[in-house]
């Protein structure tokens, strides 16, 4: 039986293995921490405000109107549902200057979310964020299926009328990668724990409590009420 062997534990091997494991853990943890830090020198898309958690802001100059913060992930099907339920209304609020709207494009569902968020920022530079946002959700591919590629995003851009080479290179070169990470970091600070999360004037709107209840998120009338406070 092995327990009869007189040799004690082989200390060199033991310490070597422990050392290696500790090294893996330390390197991994340090790398994770560093890559999640806010990068203040990252390139920012137009209409992004650092004060608004790096979100893409519409009607930032308005005062005395409701402020709607929408935290979403482009790969999240429930976000697509929110967009389909309230997208028209939100775009109308923006058009008619009745609310300040801030879109925060998180990327926690996977690398393809980052690609999409980056492309949306590129679209924002072309003043086509809303169109891109809508078109993306209308054609939402399966999560992390590999469908969201540079070609896909450029084609989607073309579909909403973006033809510039600048957009293409912005998508292909991930010009706003640093910004995407900053949005993610600010989501952590804002304590956003699921998508979509929507705040009106800094207060989260009511989430559904059971299957039959739609909450403020998926009932257009309730959402309008939450926004307008009536």
């Amino acid at each position, binding site marked *: 039986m092995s327990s009869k062997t007189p*040799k004690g534990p082989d200390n060199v091997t*033991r310490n070597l293995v*422990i050392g290696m*494991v500790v090294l893996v853990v330390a390197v991994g943890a340090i790398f994770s921490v560093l890559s999640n830090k806010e990068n203040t020198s990252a390139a920012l898309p137009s209409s992004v405000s650092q004060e608004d958690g790096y979100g893409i802001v519409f009607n930032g100059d308005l005062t005395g109107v409701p402020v709607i913060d929408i935290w979403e992930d482009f790969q999240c099907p429930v976000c697509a549902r929110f967009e389909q339920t309230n997208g028209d209304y939100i775009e109308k609020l923006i058009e008619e200057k009745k609310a300040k709207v801030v879109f925060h494009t*998180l990327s926690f569902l996977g690398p393809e979310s980052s690609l999409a968020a980056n492309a949306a920022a590129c679209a924002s530079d072309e003043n086509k964020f809303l169109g891109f946002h809508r078109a993306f959700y209308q054609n939402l591919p399966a999560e992390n299926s590999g469908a969201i590629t540079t070609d896909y995003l450029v084609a989607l851009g073309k579909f909403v009328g973006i033809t510039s080479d600048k957009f293409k290179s912005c998508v292909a070169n991930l010009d706003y990668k640093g910004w995407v990470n900053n949005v993610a970091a600010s989501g*952590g600070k804002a304590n956003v724990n*699921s998508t979509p999360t929507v705040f009106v004037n800094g207060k989260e709107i009511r989430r559904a409590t059971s*299957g039959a209840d739609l909450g403020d998120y998926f009932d257009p009338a309730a959402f309008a009420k939450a926004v307008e406070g009536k």
Partner: protein
Amino acid sequence: MKKAQPWIGLLARLILGGVLLVAGYLKAFTPDKSMMAVRAYEILPIWLANAIGIILPWLEIGAGLLLIIGVGIRYSAIFGSALMVLFIIAIAQAWARGLSIDCGCFGGGGTIDPSQTKYLEEILRDIGLALLGLYLLRYPNTKFALEKNKSREPKSSEQLTPGE
């Protein structure tokens, strides 16, 4: 039973270590999600929850590797058990307070639909894993471990061996 004990220990090591390794691996490369999962428990201040979300997956990987290789079994087993006890407390308080979250144990996590919560299963699983850790703490002598450990026999001479 005495003969079976090192084999049971091996099984305990592989299950607890395997679960820790897989759970850590699934979270380590999606830190945004992992931080979100910890925040969703609504126990810790946000900065601390974020720090744990980023670092804990790597500690799980480390403990999992040590258990599978069979080095420092007692330490990694007590770490695993303590972790499970903390998870059980966290999940139980979320359940009691009526939060609807996913435990985020294997990636995922965050607020979910109330109909999708699985608190009881999660707690039972973690109790099982905690018991495996305690078993290893009591009987660290297992098959195919890199480091040979003597199980603490209930002999008076060995009872007080310092745990160095």
